[in-house]
């Protein structure tokens, strides 16, 4: 059984929570087992907002607090230090390089820099930056299909924000196109799957 862990980090308001939930939902739709635990304090915006997600191709034997993660989804450098020590050597680290300029001090890390905030702004929807990152994350790892991310996003965006669905979908596609496809595959059988 292969199990994959993703640590999400960012600042409240950037979309980290919805991105983590979208990845969990996309994986569930693809038949994976999932365990997601968010972690945030008493801030609506501006504070630490993290999440830990474990995905598996069978019943999980997962701990809700992850200390040796396969990958990181880094929306912002502000709370990077809360994630870095919990990454395994060789971790896949996808960073929003618009808001991240630190050294990734993880042994043998495979780093993919996506200027997600700048790209989303150029696309006319700065609020879609987290979905752009998620599109890139899905494409580079194949942890879920890009189309599954779009499907999960459609389910998660509430009806009163329906107007953002098209922009989010464009952002997911743009993110996916900005990285080398399957440069760091998540699953042994991923090439067959996609």
């Amino acid at each position, binding site marked *: 059984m292969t199990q994959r862990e993703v640590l999400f980090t960012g600042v409240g308001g950037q979309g980290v929570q919805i991105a983590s939930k979208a990845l969990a939902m996309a994986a*569930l739709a693809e038949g994976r087992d999932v365990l997601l*635990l968010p972690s945030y304090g008493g801030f609506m915006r501006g504070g630490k907002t993290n999440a830990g997600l474990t995905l598996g191709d069978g019943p999980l034997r997962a701990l809700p607090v992850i200390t040796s993660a396969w990958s990181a989804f880094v929306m912002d450098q502000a709370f990077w230090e809360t994630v870095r020590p919990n990454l395994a050597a060789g971790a896949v680290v996808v960073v929003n390089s618009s808001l991240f300029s630190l050294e990734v001090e993880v042994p043998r890390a495979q780093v993919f820099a996506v200027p997600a905030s700048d790209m989303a702004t150029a696309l006319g929807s700065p609020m879609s930056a987290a979905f752009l990152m998620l599109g890139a994350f899905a494409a580079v790892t194949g942890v879920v299909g890009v189309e599954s991310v779009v499907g999960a996003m459609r389910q998660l965006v509430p009806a009163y924000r329906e107007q953002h669905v098209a922009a989010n979908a464009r952002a997911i596609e743009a993110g996916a196109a900005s990285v080398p496809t399957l440069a760091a595959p998540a699953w042994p059988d991923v090439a067959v799957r996609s």
Partner: protein
Amino acid sequence: MTTRLMQGSEAVAEAALAAGCRFFSGYPMTPFTELLENMGRKLPGAGGVCMNAASEIEAVNMTIGAAATGARVATGSCGQGLALMQEGIAELALNELPAVIFNMARGQQDYFQATRGGGWGDYRTITLAPRDVPEAVEHTQLLFYLADRYRTPVVLYGDYVIAHSTVGIDVQPIEFPATAPKDWALDGSMSGTGRARQIWTWALGKPNTPGPGPNGSWELIAEKYDQIGRAEARHEAYRTDDADVVLVSFGTTSVFVDSVVDELREDGVRVGSFRPITLWPFPGDALEQATRGCAHVLVYELNAGQLVDDVRMHAADRSVIRSIGGVSQDPSGMRQGDLLNADILRHRVRDALGLTPQGATS
């Protein structure tokens, strides 16, 4: 079967509905808030009522009233709010009213509160401590059954991890044996007959139908809790058969403990784990059996030492018991802190056993 992505709070709410819960009241307090929100969303559609009370004291007293009508009812909070509810929980017990009380605790510091109670009088609360969301779904339904079966308040000891973990889950109703008809319920059916029912602490009764009186009522209630103590203790013993070392923990901490047991077994350490599933009644006989002949009994709980009291009462050899947990609160104050961590736990176990650090050569 439809598996949906659900937060633990929503899954527990679905389980409560599946068990027939039709009244819920509470006052928001993280990490209990999401359970209240989910009950508020779901209960009206199921023909039930959810009240956002003005305080925890109001919430528990609403629950007493709703329980007296014979409906399946629940309330909850985290430990702080449950502190306010203790008088009401005692009244539920002494009026013999069934109710489920959800403690979505901010950590593991409410073990005494759950197992010793803070109300008045000779009563206990059956307390189940699930290790994860699927078990919380099962325990929620079991608790509604046990509450009715024994006419007593019962407690689910959850926490932030259970309330906020999101998993794919399909909540299905669980079948339990039928419970006795609620011929005590204040449902208005006896009005005007001269034999109208009454629920009153100590079952004091009325001049023409006197109850057992204070002493008789205490004796009946004591006998009931005695019976529960003998019949309802539940536990899980994991790899304890040949264990030289037994780790004891409860609730979500046990997930981390079992994981460390597997790792240490690979290193050749003969270690197992024991967890009370019911914090009360405590599975003392099972612990005695699981720890017989052990050289070490190590208690990992994230508080200053509460479960360890029960372990001292029941382990086969008191002299080998040691606490290796401790106070551990997150900076937000709403969840367990740094000790909810497999690496730290593994180090503490190895230290306690005098093993060389991993990777070091001796």
